[in-house]
């Protein structure tokens, strides 16, 4: 087993800009061109939100966007953060020019399909993060793509124009019904899969809260469709050293084994995961 595709790069990256999207969400642009140049859709970076020992550990973030200079060369990357703890609160308040240690790219990326297979991305909340670069890769290959995107309220549905510009069809849901269909994102996914001709291939990609991932995995299996999920676990190192981020996967003999989502994932086949 190959553990890391290449030696990860550790950069003390300048914050190029920090754009709040709401009171909780922000997009942080980091000057890490070498990481940006090497990153594939679905890979992540380990970010140290503050200097010193509190917070102590880095946090994993999907690479959200690749920034490019006037010549098209990668100049940096962004991460999509939701303020839920100490590190994300620090990241929300970062200012231009501050430095953040950023290690990556890490983990196994999405397998990007080709036409005539369609791509259906399923995102919940901050789980939108890996789909910006995936949508670009799919667009470049001419794959017909749909984004099923759910949030608590309409004000937390972000980057819709970004995806529209890539010809991605949007299927939106909100828990309060303020935008799109009221309820969870798996409901329209289930209906669309039921209506789709079995002969027309589709690959599902999912990222979001674990309950949403489990529901998406069950829905995909019910309709006999392959699904790649990007899982999010509490990580210590991101490199396979600490065994913190394990997820139970079927062992082929009716049992399970714990795999490290940092190096075996974060993208994993949904039907192999033992969902809780």
């Amino acid at each position, binding site marked *: 087993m190959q553990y890391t595709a290449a030696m990860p790069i550790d950069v003390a990256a300048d914050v190029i800009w920090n754009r709040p999207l709401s009171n909780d969400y922000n997009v942080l642009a980091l000057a890490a061109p070498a990481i940006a140049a090497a990153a594939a859709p679905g890979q992540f970076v380990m970010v140290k939100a503050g200097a010193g020992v509190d917070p102590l*550990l880095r946090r994993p973030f999907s690479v959200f966007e690749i920034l490019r200079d006037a010549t098209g060369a990668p100049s940096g990357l962004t991460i999509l953060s939701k303020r839920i703890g100490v590190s994300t609160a620090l990241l929300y308040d970062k200012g231009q020019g501050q430095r953040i240690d950023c290690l990556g790219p890490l983990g196994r990326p999405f397998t990007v399909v080709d036409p005539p297979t369609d791509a259906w991305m399923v995102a919940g909340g901050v789980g939108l993060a890996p789909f910006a670069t995936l949508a670009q890769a799919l667009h470049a290959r001419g794959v017909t793509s749909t984004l099923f995107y759910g949030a608590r309220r309409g004000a937390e549905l972000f980057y819709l124009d970004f995806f529209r510009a890539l010809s991605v069809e949007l299927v939106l849901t909100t828990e309060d019904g303020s935008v799109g269909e009221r309820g969870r994102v798996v409901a329209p996914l289930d209906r669309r899969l039921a209506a789709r001709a079995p002969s027309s291939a589709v690959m599902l990609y999912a990222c979001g809260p674990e309950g949403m991932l489990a529901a998406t995995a069950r829905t995909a299996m019910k309709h006999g469709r392959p699904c790649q999920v990007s899982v999010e676990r509490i990580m210590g190192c991101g490199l396979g*050293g600490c065994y913190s981020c394990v997820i139970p996967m079927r062992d082929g003999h009716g049992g399970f*084994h714990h795999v490290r989502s940092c190096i075996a994932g974060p993208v994993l086949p949904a039907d192999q995961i033992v969902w809780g």
Partner: protein
Amino acid sequence: MSFVSFVLNDMDLSVRIGSLTLKNPVIAASGCFGYGVEYADVVELSSLGAIVSKGLFLKEREGHPAPRIVETPAGMLNAIGLQGIGVHRFIDEKLPELRARGATVIVNVCGTTLDEYVEVSRILSGAEGVAGLELNISCPNIKEGGIQFGCSLHGTFDVVSAVRKVTTLPVIPKLTPNVTDVASFARAAEEAGADAVSLVNTFLAMVLDVETRRPKISNVVGGLSGPAIRPIAVRMVYECRQTVKIPILGMGGIADARDALEFIIAGASAVQVGTASFVDPFIWTKLIDGISDYLTRHNVARVADLVGTVDTRAQDKEWISS
């Protein structure tokens, strides 16, 4: 001495642990560095004094469900539950690559019974490329074995002496800090024939979510590591240095070369680093270079000359002169 010419322009960083000579005193701690092969692209494995493998039982273990770690102020709590591939798969799947890369490999040996420690040690003693055995009698996170030996002087003595009988490799019990007097356990290990002792393992600890009243890790309790524990670990190394003659592999919250030097001065012949390497996987050369620079700056030829050199009078002098 005959090797003085060898170290004329370079500090001598070598460390002797029983029959084993490490090229430098910086060791990757067990449970924090996978099986070493995971880090082959990040660090030249042969540049480390040694790497200590994840703990190995006879058979594979899946460990505890996630969540397995939670961060604390200047530290982290873990309860992995000694997930591991077992000694046979380690020898077949990991050891050849470690050998090929020239790594000095100390294997962390686990057991649920005394017989299992002996059997795992016996198997490893017959494997090419194992430089030493660290006996894990201090894991706070499993119900059977481990700490039940490490929290009893008789248990510690019995495990070390039983393993001693089946191997010529250096035997290095890893001691728990979750006892009243660590030094008495170091002495029991020394009397049983240990070549060195590793200390400290993690401190048993607990973190709760007050909103839900639930523990933040699945095992309810776990082991605290990181800078938060460092002063306690330094004190324990210092106490053991006063009590035993065998080398001490010191650890507990080391995050830079100064921290490592603190342990060495307190009495550690070598140091192990775990949690800090999660934060900075490239920490190893910084530690080794930092120790070397210190020796140069203080005109100390050999790192061994620095071990256990706490000047307890220094404070008094300053007190008087000020």
